[in-house]
């Protein structure tokens, strides 16, 4: 043990130990985090840290509002019948093209993340809509959940809106310009690979019976209104014409959903949604307290300093593991706390490419327990009680993403040359088109083999 890390390392062990012990005796995660923060503060000599705990608890207030309202929206469109109707329309169009349909559904899920920059919002909106389709293609709950969670993360990192990249860029005064090509190249190929890897050979053509929908006036156009209004409001928000904020947008769309399709009761729906989200909301409050105290007593500085001080040969490995791990508490927090110093450590490569890849690693944090926002909500929408099953099913693409992002950081200059060159967009889109043709041929071949 190097002398420089005392006493911080003891605070860290104490905080982690308290957390693990309390969680093991079934104290709620959020409360365990609060008490472990308290322990860290007392050991540090701050015996009455009320101000710090309350201040920390407010750290993720905006995220909490987004989660609570997105849950209400999701419950409302599920009740109104929008979820099933939309899924049916999409699935029937390509019912004999499972590979192509899977890839297109992955892109569809990503759309919400590309607009909102939030993996939670993505999983609870387009993710929820796509679940019936994935289910109809014979995918198990945990595999469908893993596909949705990973697509949520890729969506959050894909352009135009990538908040972790903005946060890292702001820390070094780098304008958010020129990020579209590298982010496209980082997310879309991975999204395709990820969904195909997770689905594996479980994938089958759409089973139309699975999509049976009862008592929903599906021919009625009004049923789509909540989704349409939501997307319009999100786009208006981003171009700066009408800034309502995600929480209000979700509430407006949720209320709209109670009047369209199957009639619902917004109060009942919101109480149910809040009950489902209270656990994760308290975790976020606890995480805020935990970070506040570990910043106060120097544990955060020790971790950042330790990773940043790694010799350059293993620095990359430190980054590849450290950023997603810290992202367990929050991908935005990880971007700010670790992303910024790491970008500074890698100045001299292609900064935009490095920043983009770091943001992808930070996004991966949304799959890491205990917060694991993307994974937990994906498990929720597919109805999988044990979130860890979803997590395990997503592990292969988690590691592929980690390796790819690290590879890009190590070779940022050559990636930079490609993404900044004139040939990028033609190569990218022609490549996608070729892939689609291959999927179509593959599906035809597969189905013929199954029928003969």
């Amino acid at each position, binding site marked *: 043990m190097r002398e420089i890390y005392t006493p911080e390392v003891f605070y860290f062990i104490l905080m982690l130990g308290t957390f693990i012990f309390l969680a093991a005796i079934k104290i709620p995660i959020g409360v365990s985090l609060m008490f472990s923060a308290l322990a860290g503060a007392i050991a540090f000599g701050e015996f009455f840290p009320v101000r710090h705990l309350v201040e920390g608890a407010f750290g993720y207030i905006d995220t909490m509002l987004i989660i609570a309202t997105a849950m209400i929206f999701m419950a409302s469109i599920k009740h109104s019948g929008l979820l099933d109707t939309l899924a049916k329309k999409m699935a029937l169009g390509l019912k004999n093209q499972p590979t192509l349909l899977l890839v297109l559904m992955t892109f569809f899920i990503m759309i919400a993340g590309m607009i909102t920059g939030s993996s939670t919002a993505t999983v609870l909106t387009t993710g929820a809509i796509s679940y019936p389709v994935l289910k109809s293609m014979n995918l198990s709950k945990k595999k469908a959940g893993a596909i949705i969670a990973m697509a949520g993360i890729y969506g959050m990192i894909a352009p135009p809106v990538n908040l972790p990249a903005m946060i890292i860029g702001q820390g070094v005064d780098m304008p958010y310009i020129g990020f579209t090509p590298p982010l496209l190249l980082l997310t879309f190929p991975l999204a395709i690979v990820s969904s195909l890897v997770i689905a594996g050979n479980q994938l089958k053509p759409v089973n139309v019976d699975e999509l049976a929908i009862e008592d929903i006036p599906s021919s009625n156009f009004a049923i789509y209104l909540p989704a349409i209004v939501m997307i319009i409001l999100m786009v208006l928000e981003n171009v700066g014409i009408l800034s309502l904020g995600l929480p209000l947008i979700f509430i407006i769309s949720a209320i709209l959903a109670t009047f369209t399709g199957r009639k619902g009761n917004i109060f009942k729906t919101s109480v149910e949604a809040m009950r489902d989200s209270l656990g994760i909301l308290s975790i976020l409050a606890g995480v805020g307290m935990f970070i506040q105290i570990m910043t106060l007593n*120097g544990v955060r*500085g020790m971790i950042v300093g330790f990773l940043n001080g790694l010799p350059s040969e293993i620095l990359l490995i430190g980054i590849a593991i450290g950023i997603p791990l810290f992202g367990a508490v929050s991908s935005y927090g990880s971007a700010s706390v670790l992303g910024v110093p790491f970008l500074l450590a890698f100045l001299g490569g292609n900064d935009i490419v490095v920043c983009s890849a770091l943001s992808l690693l930070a996004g991966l944090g949304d799959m890491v327990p205990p917060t694991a926002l993307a994974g937990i909500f994906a498990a929720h929408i597919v109805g999988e009680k044990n979130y860890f099953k979803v997590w395990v099913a997503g592990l292969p693409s988690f590691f592929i993403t980690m390796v790819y992002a690290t590879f890009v950081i190590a070779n940022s200059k050559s990636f930079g040359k490609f993404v900044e060159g004139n040939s990028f967009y033609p190569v990218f889109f022609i490549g996608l088109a070729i892939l689609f043709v291959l999927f179509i041929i593959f599906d035809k071949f597969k189905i013929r083999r199954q029928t003969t």
Partner: protein
Amino acid sequence: MKRRILAFIFYILGVIAVCIIATVSFISMKINPVLNGPGVTETVKLSNWFEGIKNTNMDTNVYVFDSGVEGGSILILGGTHANEPAGILSAIVMLENIKVETGKVFIIPYANNSAISHNDAMEGAPEFYHIDLPDGSTRDFRFGSRRTNPTDQWPDPTLYNHQSGSTLGGGEVSNLNRCYPGDPDGYPTEKLAYAIVQLIKNEKVDIVIDMHESSPEYPVNDAIVFHQNAAELAITAQMMLEMDNIQIRLEESPVNLRGLSHREIGDSTDAMVLLLEVANPSQGRLRGKTDEDLVVTGLDKFYVQAAKEGKLYAPYDENGYPISLRVARHITTIDYIIQSWNMMSEKQILIDDIPSYENLINDIGSFLIEHEG
């Protein structure tokens, strides 16, 4: 049943107690002392130049030093980022010591008055730090946030579409140094930026200096960032500083980095704009325990380590980067910028009693008035 009711009452009382304690602590930072100094000729509210911020927490005190003798004018901003205490303290030291003989000086110590009224969540920052005065007493100063207080501006949008056309993360709309040149109908922080620009235009301010601090691992450090119109001023000041063995970097304001004081005020007014940076570990990401001592001494073992590994952009060692040194650098740089200005312009700005670099480093407390808050 009875036990459940008792438990319920117990929890509710606990919650109420926590709320009261946290609120008292939160509100303690709203105090807004009026400062004074021998040379201050008038104390005016910033809303004097733009009504739109009147009676809000964005309104702030502007201290005017009018010599009555025709000459040039300068605006000195501290506290654009309220978690960068040396900028604020430099402004306070100047306002409590200087006398203006020719021209006019405006000092705004708390440029974002809302940002000094709270701390950033999850940063573990102290609410106050104190400086020892020669008579053995101490004087407390607030340590704030980089951003406007959410009780004054919330929620921020997902994206901040700056009027220049560039897109920033939504939170930057509560960062005064991304809101220039401001918007009279925008978010409160944009209104604040607009008010400052109105002051500059209406008072025909010649020089604007915006004082900051930056973490030692950040490349723009111990630096003058200048708008291209102020290049000569910056270069001359740097030469003077180097003659005193004070190393300072020069950075020209990048054209595509929008919303910053040196870019937007420089583009939209006739003033020459310069932004000063000095290294400060208490806001850096490598820092260890975060407390008052760190703010005052600037000494952190993890930064010492990082310096040995060659990862910093500022000279840093076991002596730390004390606030007295940071203030001394800022004030001396301002002094030399004004001297450079006087060499190239007929509109003279002559100031007496600017504390010297050595005296500030030796005993900054002796330049502070014994004072409340």
